[in-house]
């Protein structure tokens, strides 16, 4: 697929990943003529395929809770609507508490979260032991439970959305990295690749870990820097675990870690290194497996029997405050930023895609204004996401 130099589009999306693909899907559905450009060979070959598949609306702020709830709506109804299995499972999320401080923090968040429309409750120790059979009861105080959260296969979900976006008329060009963003008189005019030039009044930066470079091409600085996390997947076993378990305790070499059992019966797990490992290096480390295995076996001892099948390392495009950056660039008209997902691009993607489509059409809903205010590129970045 090579570019036609005279092509012009309503919008051009940079990045066929967790954000770009649902955005293209929504925009094509809304009748926009949209082009997606990606330097990789096929859809979702950046950080999407590194996502472990967790989907939650359990966040600490109204913007992400809103986008998360919208996204869950899309993921959870996909099979009914399109007769395609994307591996969706409503297993819920549980943030487990082992210290009084954790309990306190989770409980106070629950009040806020409920006020933003999230269904979430506190389970005390016996209730949690019932929800998670086999969990190590030592020091366990209780935990949150948000039953409507779940998981899906990032690979299948993005492919399904990609296929439908194509059917709806969206164009995708792979192996075609964006090398130029043309800005004329303070607004975007189009983008160039080694294969051609495409003009458009709107360019959406959905380039994930490479968002900062793509912003730079338009002369914009954005505070997005990737750090690397490792994840893994086990052999499948009969279902024994319903929710995603998130353990936020810090330990030697790691911050939090989390795991769940996917629709195939496999445990998928991931660990946040501490201190963060900044940069683009996604080569496998020797420290990951021993570190994560200890933590998992400590929380659920029977996991010791479970065989690891595969591990990988992926990038989290981080922002200073841990919240995504969504909004029009201040100095370049028509340049829309959908960047800095901090590892949550997949779970926020569908809701965000709808929002990006409305922004492109300048047809915002009331709720959108509030979301965009919180996630604005112009914000001070002084806050801190509590449930990274």
């Amino acid at each position, binding site marked *: 697929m090579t570019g036609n130099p005279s092509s012009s589009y309503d919008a051009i999306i940079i990045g066929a990943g967790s954000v770009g693909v649902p955005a293209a899907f929504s925009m094509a559905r809304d009748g926009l003529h949209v082009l997606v450009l990606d330097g990789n060979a096929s859809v979702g070959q950046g950080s999407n395929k590194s996502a472990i598949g967790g989907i939650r609306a359990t966040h600490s702020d109204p913007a992400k809770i809103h986008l998360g709830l919208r996204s869950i709506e899309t993921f959870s109804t996909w099979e009914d609507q399109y007769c395609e299995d994307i591996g969706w499972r409503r297993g819920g999320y549980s943030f487990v508490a082992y210290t009084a401080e954790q309990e306190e923090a989770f409980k106070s968040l629950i009040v806020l979260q409920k006020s933003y429309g999230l269904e979430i409750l506190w389970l005390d120790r016996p209730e949690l032991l019932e929800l998670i059979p086999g969990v190590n009861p030592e020091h366990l105080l209780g935990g949150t439970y948000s039953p409507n959260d779940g998981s899906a296969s990032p690979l299948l979900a993005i492919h399904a959305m990609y296929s439908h976006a194509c059917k709806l008329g969206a164009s995708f060009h792979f192996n075609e990295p964006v090398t130029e963003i043309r800005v004329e008189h303070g607004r975007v005019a189009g983008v160039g690749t080694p294969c051609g030039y495409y003009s458009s009044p709107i360019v959406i930066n959905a380039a994930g870990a490479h968002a900062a470079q793509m912003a730079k091409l338009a002369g914009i600085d954005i505070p997005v820097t990737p750090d690397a996390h490792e994840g893994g997947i086990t052999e499948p076993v009969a279902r024994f675990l319903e929710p995603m378990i998130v353990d936020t305790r810090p330990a030697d070499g790691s911050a939090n870690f989390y795991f769940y059992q996917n629709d195939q019966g496999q445990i998928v797990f991931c660990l946040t290194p501490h201190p963060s490992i900044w940069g683009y290096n996604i*080569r496998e480390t020797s420290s990951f497996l021993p570190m994560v295995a200890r933590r998992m076996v400590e929380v659920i001892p029977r996991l010791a*029997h479970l065989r690891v*099948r595969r591990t990988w390392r992926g990038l989290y495009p981080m922002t200073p405050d841990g919240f995504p950056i969504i909004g029009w660039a201040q100095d370049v008209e028509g340049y829309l930023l959908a960047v800095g997902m901090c590892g949550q691009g997949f779970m926020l993607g569908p809701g965000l895609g709808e929002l990006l489509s409305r922004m492109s059409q300048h047809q915002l809903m009331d709720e959108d204004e509030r979301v965009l205010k919180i996630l604005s590129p112009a914000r001070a970045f002084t806050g801190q996401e509590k449930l990274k």
Partner: protein
Amino acid sequence: MPNHRLQIHPILPIPQREGFEFYWEENRFTGLPGETISAALFANGVHVFGHHLRDGSPQGIYCANGQCAQCLVLENGKPVKACMELVSPEARIEPLNTLPKLPESPATSYMQPVEELRIPVLIIGGGPAGLSAAIELGKLGVPTLLIDDKHHLGGKMVLQTHRFFGSREAVYAGTRGIDIAARMADEVKSLSPYVQVWLNSTALAVFSDRKVGILRDGSQYVLVKPEALLVASGAREKSLAFRGNWLPGVYGAGAFQTLLNRDLVLPAQHLFIVGGGNVGLIAAYHALQAGVEVVGLVEALPECGGYKVHQDKLKRLGVPIFTSHTILSANGDQTVESATIAQVDARFQPIPDTEKTFACDAILIAVGLDPVNEFYTKAREFDLPVFTAGDAGEIAEASAAIYSGKIQGFEIARSLSYPAPEIPEEWRRQAEILKSKPGKLIDSDGPDAEPGVYPMIHCLQEIPCDPCSSVCPRGLIQINREDIRKTPVFDTTQGVCSGCERCVAICPGLAITLVDSRKDPEHPLISLPFEFPETLFPEGELVTVVDIEGNFLADLPVVKIRHIKANDRTRIVRVQAPRELARKIAGIRLLNQSANPLKEDQSADAREAMICRCERVSAAEIRSLIRAGIHDLNEIKAVTRAGMGACGSKTCGPLIRRLLLEEGVPSAEIMDLTRRPLFVEVPLGVFAGVKPDSGGDGDR
């Protein structure tokens, strides 16, 4: 109670072992100490180990090498690879038909820290190449750790009951693979403490900090940081997409040899072989030696690619070889019941109405090997000094692997600044010779007929091999020392043959006979090499003698069978023949059959061709995606799960690539699968350092 263990074998000793009982479902079966679960089940006639949870398809042994996970069974409730785990008394083995339950486990307070080790040289793989390198490194005083995932050193040599080709001086040619393995293993052990050996220890990954993760003795996770890594991990067998290719009873050739020659069980009675390279030809010979009938062998090319001597040997024994033929389907309900083949045209497409179906209960796939090179690739990527030897670098004969290991041993020592002599140019030349493919055919009538005794050398193709020339006590058989690929010549100018039969016995190709006219010039005695139990043809019994390519010559009585220790299990059968036949007789026919195809075509209801065995993804499914424009292997994987199974795309990766090429996608456009750790699946408890008894596996 059926017992499918080998009772008699012309080469392998059958040890007498005290049995014990174990359970298969509700049945009490007998197992033997040291026997794998798969061998014990085969010995008791069980070939279906479970059913795939996606579609209920029967599952059994495929690779017998710990790589494919198709042989998973439940051992005392835990899923294990039947081909790797040893059976134990009172074990409860059950088929795996659904997702296994994860056993309960008490909380463990103690987790062992991961042991880390630094060593100048780590060698992955204790086969011919790895052993050979370890021997040289040990002799040079370079501390070396050699790991191997099996319970014995020797790699695939432990399956090779035949005499090896190559140079007798350089690589033990003329000796049986099993004995070379034992000899080299002994030498490695004698080089302790320089060479340390970890058996039952599998390399899992090479990490970016240049540490190699190793599952030691099946239970402990160790990180080894070598100064240099030698990848001598051998090869894996290529697979082939044909309908029913996943049925239990379809094996890799190496798997079948493992079951026969290592596990000493009879996996089948009637065998069909796909592929006429050396692997397929030798596998056929091994099967015959164990008493398995070889129904036929197909080769897609107009000529078999393996050594002519191997091929001739099979033809003489009576194995039908179908060149320019391919397999269309494996047919059967739960296991293989027949194979359907067809002739192919110049583009390897089956020609309609040439289908033939043969009854058989096993099909071997011997269509070539791919290097196991993932550790090498990763080490290169991470700037860990890395070398390869043997098949992991380049697919060739075991003799070439031994020699390349020797050279790499010196190379590594030199790279680490140990005092090691420079590698002579002569070695590199020899290495190239040993790697060479079979060369041109020679037209030879043999020496002039003489009144006395002389060898007839039925070795008419240039291959790297020299034992006959080195064994003749009078130096009458000559091979160009500069290039042992040249065919041997019997040189009458140098002296007179004594008729010692040593050349007859040692020839790895069984391609030398002796014509002895000294007693009766009209009815000379012919000495023929024979590697089957002598009970097959007692003295006095009529045997069918055939020419070099198996054509009938006569039925003659066996005059004598000579079975002496010096000939190392090669029997010499003497027959007396009319003078005019004497020089043509090259062997004895074993099978008296003429490849009778079944009247009924059983392929009509053959199942799909499976590409990904683990996740059950068919060729049709992948082809339709390719035709819809999906050319990235990673995308095919994402959509179908092909390559996401337990084996880590070891089998399906190359098959998908082949489908892409067949569908006309240019090679340069195909994006390879991204390779990720681990090499095999390992329990989390091992990485966590949980004591085996409280969590992990490996409790034997």
